[in-house]
């Protein structure tokens, strides 16, 4: 029984999942209302570049004007993390969306038709998987020039094999079921069988995985930005902001935590964002697994 009521009941019973949902909802609100929460100053054209309030290379601690302080080059941290939420969602949704589409297409072909189509697709995924993902992503972003879009493209290229395999597995688990035979018996076209019968019955675990991977994708994107391969300097992106902070972690002699805000605040945003998705994911897995029985 996987009715909505049941899912809601299980979520209610699981306090961790409530925390997860709350966190994600908060972030969604922040993302939608970014222009209201952290309004861009007059004449600031590209909203995704953090406005600068000076040119001093030393970060300044939080005060009335800059709620979270400024980082080197006087970029406002508060603005950066708020608008960074939008960047995070953008990256997460685009990557996962694309990867799902590719995965469904290729995975269906491989799982449904089997034989040589399957072998070929599997070998190709093997090759991509043999590449350490970060290196591949690094190589792609270097080749294309560092930017957020390169990061997105790189992450898509790195992640599609996993989803192809997952969808393929889903299809395989359901392919031999009787109702598929029945549909074939009445002469439905392949596409119809896949789209209307096989996928709707098998794809939920993969969809769940995908929605939770949004957190992981954002983490990877942040890592790439941190390494300098992602968003350009001053862009509102959490990873990029931590990269700024790297030089300031040792603080001043006598006060090692002098610049804590440069590294801690963006990091906490990333942590909570990913945490929210992971908590939700955990809860979903606990709900779906035993109910699905043998799969």
């Amino acid at each position, binding site marked *: 029984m996987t009715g909505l009521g049941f899912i809601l009941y299980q979520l209610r019973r699981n306090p961790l999942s409530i925390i997860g949902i709350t966190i994600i909802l908060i972030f969604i609100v922040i993302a939608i209302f970014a222009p209201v929460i952290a309004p861009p100053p007059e004449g600031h054209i590209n909203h995704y570049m953090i406005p600068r309030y000076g040119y001093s290379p030393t970060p300044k601690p939080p005060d009335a004007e800059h709620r979270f302080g400024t980082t080197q080059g006087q970029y406002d941290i508060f603005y950066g993390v708020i608008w960074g939420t939008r960047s995070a969602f953008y990256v997460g949704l685009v990557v996962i969306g694309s990867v799902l589409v590719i995965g469904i297409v290729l995975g269906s072909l491989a799982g449904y038709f089997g034989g040589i189509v399957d072998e070929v697709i599997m070998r190709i995924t093997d090759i991509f998987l043999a*590449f*350490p993902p970060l290196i591949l992503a690094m*190589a792609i972003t270097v080749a294309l020039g560092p930017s957020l879009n390169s990061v997105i493209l790189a992450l898509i290229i790195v992640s599609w094999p996993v989803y192809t395999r997952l969808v393929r597995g889903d299809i395989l688990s359901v392919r031999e079921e009787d109702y598929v035979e029945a549909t074939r018996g009445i002469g439905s076209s392949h596409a119809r069988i896949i789209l209307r019968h096989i996928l709707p019955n098998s794809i939920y675990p993969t969809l769940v995985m995908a929605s939770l991977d949004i957190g992981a994708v954002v983490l990877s994107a942040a890592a790439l930005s941190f390494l300098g391969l992602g968003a350009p300097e001053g862009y509102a992106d959490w990873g990029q902001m931590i990269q700024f902070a790297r030089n300031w972690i040792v603080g001043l002699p006598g006060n090692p935590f002098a610049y804590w805000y440069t590294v801690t605040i963006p990091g906490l945003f990333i942590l909570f964002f990913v945490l929210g998705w*992971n908590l939700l994911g955990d809860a979903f897995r606990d709900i779906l697994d035993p109910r699905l029985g043998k799969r």
Partner: protein
Amino acid sequence: MELRTYIIRRLVLLIPVLFGVTLLIFGLLQLFDPVERAALYVKDVRQFSEVGAIIERYGLDQPVWIQYGNWINEIFHGNFGWSKVVAMPVLDAIVNFLPATLELAIFATPLIIFGGIFLGSKAAAHKDRTVDHATRVGAIIGWSLPTFWLGLILLMVFYGFFRGFLPPERLSTDVSILVHSDVFTRYTRMNVIDAILNGNGRVLGDALRHLILPVITLTVVNLAFIMRLMRSSMLESLGRGYILTARAKGLDENSVVNKHARRNALIPVLTVSGYIFAAIVNGVVITETIFNYKGLGWWAWQSAINLDVPSILAFALFNGVLFVLTNLVVDLLYARIDPRVRLGAQVT
């Protein structure tokens, strides 16, 4: 299908996959211009002045397949090019930096795998009780941590705050001098092992102190992952029919969990181990970068930032090979644990 046949078949399949990896790498290469690609064929810093000649000799402005053939040829002759970021031939760079990374991996990997399996089992066996909730929370937070952020925070606290108690890099300056001097023999170039072999306590202590933070950084995220996986795998295993049978036979809870449930639960965890390896490689790049720990990961990052094409490609190739081999080992272990894989599904 017999085990031997299985192994041979897998080894044979290795070749087209490696072939494919090199193709992929080479494909990436084409995105760079000929000058940068020329760096691949250079073994010595002096050769740079003859870039034009190199381009011509190796046909770098010629059709792709000829270039590919040339490149493969060079590789087979042991010439991987010149790494400009560290000013030495790529092959030397790999040999130079490998021990450092190996040392890190040797400490981190058992922690990750055995720690994860152990904690995951405990959590599953005591489901919904304190142990379970505590480890769950820990695991979820651990898995959500950005590795690089964790490293930075750790540095901030243990290096900045505790006045250099756990410092970055591999060795303190003075110990480093000692290690490179004649008094100390570098057998493996892995500091901890060498220190033991040399019977030198000072080097040992220093090396360990430098290793603690990077190892923690590397371990936390991956440990959390394995732990979660082991837990859910154990829970699934514990729900199976043979567990009820085992209990009905009068086996004590310990045997039921550790003998019957665990072996079955390990199977999916093992499958994932290959990906964990990839995660460790990723983690190594970030970790070494943060701690300025001069190993392969650090080298890879420097190369990436500075567009040092030969280095990037060599690192990628090296990793591709390693990954494929690791997968093979994993598959073999898989076959050893699961008799259905080993002996094929037959009915006599």
